[in-house]
């Protein structure tokens, strides 16, 4: 099904984007980022870090579990496992074996918005990695027997990671209650009864629909030059024809939530009862990351430090309500996401008392506003985190991969520190007033014993 490729002339979008200048700490030498598109639509990002002669090679597909159709939950992840089987050129298992024989490590992961494959290897082995990754983008061969065995593996994976973990089971119920239209409400690994029915044809349908260069982002991070990576990308990925029938990424959107949802998850394996609340929240959108930036600060202010954030101050220092309290928000998401709070009550404190105290703390914050000295400290840490992040080329590769498959561009990623830097206390309060609305929330109690833990 591949057409003969035309000579790919790469279109350079930008070159050597300078690292974000950090006035406080000076410039970092280790990380220049270059981006370009191949003619077949494949995006390429190169992150230079010449400190060690190694490289991370990653291919992200803009297809995750939230792109699945109802009834086939888990197929994105199932296919990810099956991608390590045979191709026209490689026998089953040969991909990983070849990586290992070249002194590299490889793996893959599936998320709501993307599926990614990566190898970490000596920089001079990059061509081989590209050849094999390009091969399996279009040439996968699956036998029925392998599909059947691998289905058992993913069911065991579900047993290990979800069914053996009451926190994971609770989280699954929580998301199912939070998202009633978006596929974010369905677990990435899938519901067991649907996973059991996933067929070879289901996996191959998924593969044929989404695995093509115009749905992929290549990230190469490490001891490479942008020019050399471009040449290699053109050589290995360039000849693969774009998929003309790639579906547009239009997914079911959440309706407005008008009523609070509450649930209780009971499991005898829960060691300590706890409470989680999530609110529907906007995500980072291309060219419009301001509200997400404000929410990023809000999460830090409310729960980013177990010593100095608002919830910790009120619930563990100024009172003895909680053992732990915190907040979470991740803005990289294709569709609207959640802002979360959690609290584990101290011994002798009921979940209801803990929830009331948490709400009182939020009310106090909404009335009193942001503490400017706390905000200053968080700004300092946000700036420093950019420096610490530059120490981890693989981590930077993953950040770009996640962003570029969640509706953001390289320019958005580059702009993010500036957007964060421009957030004001008033922006944060406005975002807080908008998001911290109980009518748009789900609250879950996780208990070992309903009778005992919920009086």
């Amino acid at each position, binding site marked *: 099904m591949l057409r003969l*490729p035309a000579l790919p002339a790469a279109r350079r979008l930008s070159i050597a984007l300078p690292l974000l200048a950090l006035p406080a700490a000076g410039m970092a030498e280790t990380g220049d980022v270059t981006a370009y598109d191949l003619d077949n639509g494949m995006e390429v990002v190169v992150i230079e870090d010449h400190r060690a002669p190694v490289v991370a090679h990653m291919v992200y597909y803009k297809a995750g579990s939230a792109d699945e159709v109802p009834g086939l939950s888990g197929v994105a992840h199932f296919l990810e496992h099956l991608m390590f089987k045979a191709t026209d050129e490689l026998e089953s298992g040969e991909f990983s074996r070849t990586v290992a024989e070249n002194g590299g490590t490889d793996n893959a992961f599936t998320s709501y918005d993307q599926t990614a494959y990566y190898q970490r290897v000596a920089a001079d082995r990059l061509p081989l990695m590209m050849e094999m990754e390009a091969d399996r983008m279009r040439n996968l061969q699956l036998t029925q027997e392998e599909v059947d065995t691998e289905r058992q593996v993913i069911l065991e994976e579900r047993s290990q990671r979800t069914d053996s973990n009451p926190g994971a089971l609770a989280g699954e119920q929580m998301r199912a209650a939070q998202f009633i239209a978006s596929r974010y409400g369905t677990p990435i690994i899938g519901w067991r009864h649907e996973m059991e029915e996933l067929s070879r044809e289901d996996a191959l349908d998924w593969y044929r629909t989404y695995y093509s260069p115009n749905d992929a982002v290549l990230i190469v991070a490490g001891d490479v030059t942008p020019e050399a990576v471009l040449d290699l990308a053109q050589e290995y990925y360039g000849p693969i024809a774009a998929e003309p029938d790639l579906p547009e990424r239009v997914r079911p959107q959440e309706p407005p939530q008008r009523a609070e949802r509450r649930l209780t998850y009971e499991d005898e394996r829960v060691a300590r009862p706890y409470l989680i609340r999530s609110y529907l929240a906007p995500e980072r959108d291309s060219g419009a990351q301001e509200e997400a930036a404000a929410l990023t600060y809000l999460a830090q202010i409310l729960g980013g*430090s177990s010593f100095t954030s608002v919830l910790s101050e009120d619930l563990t220092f100024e009172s003895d309500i909680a053992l732990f309290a915190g907040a979470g928000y991740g803005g990289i998401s294709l569709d609207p996401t959640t802002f979360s709070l959690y609290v584990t009550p101290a011994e002798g404190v009921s979940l209801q008392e803990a929830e009331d105290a948490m709400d009182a703390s939020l009310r106090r914050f909404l009335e009193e506003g942001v503490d400017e000295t706390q905000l200053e400290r968080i700004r300092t840490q946000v700036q420093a985190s950019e420096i610490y992040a530059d120490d981890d080329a693989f981590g930077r590769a993953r950040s770009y991969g996640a962003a570029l498959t969640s509706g953001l561009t390289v320019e958005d990623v580059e702009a993010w520190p500036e957007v964060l830097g421009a957030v004001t206390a008033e922006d944060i309060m406005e975002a807080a007033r908008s998001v911290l609305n109980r009518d748009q929330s789900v609250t879950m109690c996780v208990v070992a014993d309903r009778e005992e833990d919920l009086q």
Partner: protein
Amino acid sequence: MIRTIIRPAACALALKGSTALPAAAQEGVESAIDIQEVTSPGGIEAWLVEEHSLPFTALEIRFDGGAVLDPEGKEGATNLMMGLLEEGSGDMDARAFQTTREGLAAQFGFDAGTDTVSVSAQVLTENRGEAMDLLRQALIDPAFNETAVERVRAQVQAGIQADAVNPQRISGRTWFEEAYPGHPIGRPLSGTEESVASLSRADLHAAHEAAMVRDRIHVGAVGDITPEALGTLLDDLLGDLPQEGPALPEAADYALDGGTTVVDFPSPQSVALFGQPGIARDDDDFFAAYVLNHILGGGGFESRLMDEVREKRGLTYGISTFLSDTEYSELWLGSVASGNATIAEALEVTKAEWADIAENGVTEEELDQAKTYITGEYPLRFDGNGQIASILVGLQMIDLPPSYVLDRNSYIEAVTLEDVNRVAAELLDPEALHTVVVGQPEGLEGADHEAADLPSVLPEPPAAAPETGASQTTE
């Protein structure tokens, strides 16, 4: 160049056929790091890699000792003490300390292990002096004030309760308790609910004085700092610690025979930890055993156990084995999880592989593939300042010289097929494997069943890897 047809694997095969090592393996880590041995004016020794391209420094400090120094009945003292170092010192309470740290964007970590305690720090160049003053205060003059002690004690107790219903944790604790009854490494690192409840401020001060002493220090530093600046920094930071600590325990006697212990636990899947005696880190055959382990169950998708148990039979999401050495123990351990109905088969296949490799050894091809991977993977570990600092300290702790990072791959290369197969025959003993299964396994013959209701507190194994609780030997 126009390629009219895509034949990626043709090239791939050609490359795969080459015997050349990856450049990174050939160069070793030479091109990446240059280790300097630094002795401070006050006599503290450290290994340093200067890396001035980023304006921060990673510091990793470890002390031999750890939770094995907890007195009888005071189990968990070292762990609680380390948890309290970030909770106030000098005149600062927890919030004052953390507010200052956050304002400096310094990152501190304080951890207790079974045979070590560690302090990790990442500090910006622009405020390194202030950050180090703060860290010094935490290390030298912890406050252990009452409200902080009670708060962290409650958090530790919650962790102990969570471990008691975590199948991985239960398997590790049960295995180590049975393997080393009565020895400190068979005891719980975090203590029991009773022992933690009994700890006083005096106990914490005693644990502090025992754990952090100058003649048990190892230091790795990587980043934007010169040898001179590091020397001064170390004297300021660590110079006022006590010189010596209490004697360390004697080696532990291994008490397990082959067999299976089942701990009944309500879960759809059974978690198994299996193990047998291992090999000393300084044994001449260590590298042969290391390569052998890689082939047996150490290497990602490529190991025999992964192939037999997961790839061929779909019995698990993952199975792995590793060598685990401490000052007190030498073990060959592995873990697997499988459905209650299939765990018996998974363990049977595992034992058969154990027997096969002991009897028939490995092939030249397996050995070559393992060597290529192990030597090629080594430089990948030197990935970032914090990682490198950690590696440097790990080597010091087992008395290896800085040149080890350059020579290590030659030790792997020197391993012969005869070595591996001799070690397999001598060491691997399927009848010596003892397995702890946590779950509701079906069809396990001859297993000893433990009481269905879990003891509320079980001992914890040497900590590190979350899966089994035992840490992998540095090589």
